[in-house]
């Protein structure tokens, strides 16, 4: 498929624990993760905290070195970078939006000095006048206008929503092809979330970028994406077209997630959800299927072998032996 822009094949990331007593202990933050991202597509990566979704984004961003597996950009294996040039070339194409708008802008810099960096590093502006125009454009693009009003301000003088807009402007500055959005709205007030989501959807169309949209909110994922991948305890459990995965969730975990999500429109209080417990420790992940400790349908085999990804047609894959 030449439409694929990014592909992960069996990528794992294990973090070594620090300290002498923890030598040889690792956190299995991400295990055997495979998926691809099409050009101009938006793929949602859904999971609870500790599911490995942020690790996945960080590994793709090159922030952490992967333990094993291969990552392809435009069909070429990438990472780890051998030279600074290679790293810059990659970062020109792949950008990331961070979760916390309050932590992702340096409090000691003005919006101008934050925003001009990508243009300077990637030598995108020919002159100071051009740079000025670019700065203004990128702020207006994210709805911060008049741009001149914002350039001289410090981050603490902006609201959370405005800061997240500055963040988004920074990632779009280099005209990337892929945006990794790590829960970009989860720390924002409810009333302004949808505005930021809409803006990202618009930018995706306008700038022809592909989105990897990371979230814990299934409904938000549905709003933002055409395909969806659900992660649990470091592994992808189900992946497929959004409507299909949500309407016909196959994996017991995805069913659980769906049953747990608030759904006011359904009108009646829902029946008790079947499963209990919480995400297991990733230092000693459960043997076999990582969900078997909480799964209401678990059989003996589930604790014995890790189920493989199974194609159930229509681009829909599930990691469950019971299917």
């Amino acid at each position, binding site marked *: 498929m030449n439409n694929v822009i990014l592909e992960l094949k069996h990528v794992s990331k294990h973090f070594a624990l620090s300290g002498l007593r923890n030598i040889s202990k690792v956190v299995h933050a991400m295990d055997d993760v495979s998926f691809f991202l099409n050009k101009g597509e938006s793929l949602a990566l859904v999971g609870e905290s500790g599911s490995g979704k942020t690790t996945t984004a960080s590994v793709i961003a090159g922030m952490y070195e992967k333990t094993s597996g291969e990552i392809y950009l435009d069909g070429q294996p990438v990472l780890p970078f051998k030279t600074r040039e290679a790293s810059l070339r990659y970062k020109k194409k792949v950008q990331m939006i*961070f979760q916390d708008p309050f*932590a992702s802008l*340096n409090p000691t810099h003005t919006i101008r000095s934050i925003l001009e*960096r990508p243009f300077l590093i990637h030598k995108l502006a020919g002159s100071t006048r051009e740079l000025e125009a670019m700065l203004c454009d990128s702020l207006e693009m994210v709805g911060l206008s008049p741009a001149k009003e914002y350039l001289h301000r410090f981050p603490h003088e902006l609201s959370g929503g405005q800061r997240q807009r500055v963040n988004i402007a920074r*990632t779009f*500055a280099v005209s990337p092809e892929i945006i990794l959005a790590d829960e970009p709205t989860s720390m924002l007030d409810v009333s302004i979330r949808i505005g930021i989501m809409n803006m990202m959807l618009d930018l995706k169309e306008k700038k022809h970028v592909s989105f990897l949209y990371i979230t814990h909110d299934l409904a938000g994922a549905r709003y933002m994406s055409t395909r969806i991948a659900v992660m649990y305890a470091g592994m992808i459990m189900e992946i497929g077209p959004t409507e299909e995965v949500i309407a016909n969730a196959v994996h017991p975990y995805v069913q659980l997630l769906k049953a747990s999500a608030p759904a006011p429109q359904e009108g009646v209080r829902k029946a008790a959800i079947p499963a209990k417990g919480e995400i297991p420790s990733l230092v000693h992940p459960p043997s076999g299927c990582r969900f078997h400790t909480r799964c209401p349908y678990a059989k003996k085999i589930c604790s014995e072998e890790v189920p493989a990804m199974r194609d159930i047609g229509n681009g829909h894959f599930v990691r469950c032996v019971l299917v």
Partner: protein
Amino acid sequence: MIRDFFKTLIKNKKSLSGLVLLGFFILVALFAPLLAPYPPKTDRVEHTTLLEENKGDPEVLSEETEGQNREKSVYTVTITQKYEKTTEYFPTRAKPSKDHILGTNHAGNDLFSQIIMGTRVSLFVGLATGLFVTFISLSLALLSGYLGGILDDVISFVTNVFLVIPGLPLMIVIGTYVPMHGVLPIILILSLTSWPYPTRLLRSQVLTLKNRDFVRASKMIGERTSFLIFREILPNMISIVMSEFFTVSLSAILGEATLEFIGVGNITVVSWGTILYWAQANGAILMGAWWWFLPPGLLIALTGTAFVLINFGIDEISNPRLRKR
């Protein structure tokens, strides 16, 4: 950003009074020779007057002693001039008087002048040690905190070891071995024992900042490591670095005074510590010579208070919980 930091510092009452106090001491130190009525190590004043031209060989014309502390001689220096020189020796261990507002010591030196000149040494040693230690510990903290890995393990381990070895006895032992010329050895010895604590503190701050999203975001757009360290992390450490600087300076001033007092330092230098050393060595207390040993200690405490006040202000700025409500 540094300008902003000082702006907020000036707005805070405590740190403002600390800065004013410190500024006063710095002015005294800078203009010490102008402010001191006499050179600090002199025990006499001499008045010389030209009496007449003389063409003969140099000779002493007359010599007489006038009272206990006064000599008079009439002599010719060259073949042409005849002088009269009056040498007035200061009284030793004298009480404060019009001529010597803080009295004199055992050698007849004017104590007020010594105190003024001593401000220079004490303040210089304090601030120089503060600067040096801050530089060293900040460098170590950035190296070990930002780069991590084995380097970090080694630096933190060494820091932890030296953190618990008692500093003052170590300084004394080293001080007796090291030949004391000028004040540089004292600065080095004080630095040697005061780097571990700030290093540890700054390192943990670097670790926190390093994992903040704005550093990761900058890395993501392709910033170099040097930019990340010096432009992203460092500006956020101003208040903690300044606070460490003042803390180290204060303990260096106390440490210098202590070493000098014991006689480990360079006793020929005039500083607040050596004034106290000579006071103790000459039994100032038994003579009731309070003017000899009280003022240096009070000044040390006042300088210290200036540093502490500045740090109170910094604390209140960086830790909102301590702010008066």
